[in-house]
């Protein structure tokens, strides 16, 4: 039985889809069978980030409504042959998803794949709740910034109340993935530190992804950064986060920026 991991955040634009693609590809590269499911019905983007936008024929809603078989809707990645994508529908809205339908699809995927990553839409409404409903684990993508941390806290509350596991009295394993971390700004005390974020959310850390132009370039090219440029900092951080997700005990190193001469001279304190 495979593991179902929801990638969620509450707030939009923090990097859910990018992180789903990067983590999923990183796990698939190790030989595990991985399915990425886009739950953002009506605003799908995972296909674009994965570079599969021209190969979409059937989607999640088609499978739920019985218009296509799961095997017909799954798109095999051209770079990693254990990596598959189940796209969202672009023409429907989130009401087209039913809980029973989603449950059936997730059950089938779970029996075939080692990992099922559910890319949640932003918000806390139906789409986001269905994306997390059947999850065993959750990756909460958070930017070190007040509104993102607040929304993450709200999502953690939902994970502990509205998931199948929570309702059955079981724990859902939660991990915080801090993205768009700017070491220089954190050193100057202009950005919440990793310790601040972890102390406030009290959820263990999966990894710290530094702010990076490479991530944007990877999106432009339609390739997860862990596949296109596996040696750059952001990709390395994702690859390590994926290993931790698989249970490896790998310490997280907080990226740091050496203080500049002027900072030292003017005695700017680190937060």
């Amino acid at each position, binding site marked *: 039985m495979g593991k179902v991991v929801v990638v969620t955040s509450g707030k939009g634009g923090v990097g859910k889809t990018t992180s789903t693609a990067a983590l999923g590809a990183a796990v698939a590269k190790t030989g595990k069978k991985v399915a990425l499911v886009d739950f953002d019905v009506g605003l799908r983007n995972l296909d674009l980030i994965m570079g599969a936008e021209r190969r979409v024929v059937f989607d999640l809603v088609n499978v739920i409504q019985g218009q296509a078989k799961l095997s017909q809707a799954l798109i095999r990645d051209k770079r990693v042959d254990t990596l598959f994508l189940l796209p969202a529908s672009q023409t429907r809205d989130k009401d087209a998803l039913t809980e029973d339908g989603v449950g059936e699809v997730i059950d089938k995927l779970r029996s075939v794949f080692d990992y099922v990553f559910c890319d949640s839409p932003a918000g806390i409404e139906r789409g986001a709740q269905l994306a997390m409903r059947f999850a065993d684990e959750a990756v909460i993508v958070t930017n070190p*910034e*007040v509104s993102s*941390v*607040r929304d993450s*806290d*709200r999502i953690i*509350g939902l994970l502990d*109340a509205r998931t199948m596991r929570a309702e059955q009295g079981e724990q859902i394993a939660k991990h915080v993935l801090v993205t768009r971390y700017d070491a220089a700004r*954190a050193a*100057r*005390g*202009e*950005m*919440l*530190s990793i310790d*601040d974020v972890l*102390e*406030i959310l009290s959820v263990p850390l999966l990894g710290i992804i530094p702010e990076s132009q490479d991530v944007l370039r990877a999106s432009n090219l339609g390739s997860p950064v862990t596949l296109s440029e596996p040696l750059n900092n952001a990709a390395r951080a994702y690859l390590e986060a994926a290993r931790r997700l698989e249970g490896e005990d790998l310490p997280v190193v907080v990226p740091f920026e050496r203080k500049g001469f002027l900072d030292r001279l*003017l*005695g*700017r*304190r680190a*937060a």
Partner: protein
Amino acid sequence: MSILDLFKRRTSAPVARERLQVLLAYERRSRGQPDLVSILREEIMAVIAKHVQIDQDYIQVSMDRGETMSTLEIDIQIPNKSAVPLAMAG
């Protein structure tokens, strides 16, 4: 304030952390209790308004949730001249 302080930039991250801690402590407490206080306020108002003319502004409903016990405090001010029951006044 020394002249050196002019060059020191005040950091904003500690302020962010403190604001979040205060806000989230409150939001976590009220989670799963979908605005109980405002529902109570409305229903209590309706009952009292059946018998006495009251002004919305003179009703205070507050709730204090403790670890072992919670208290619900309702404070209704009835101005003397309208304290006459509606049936008699009409």
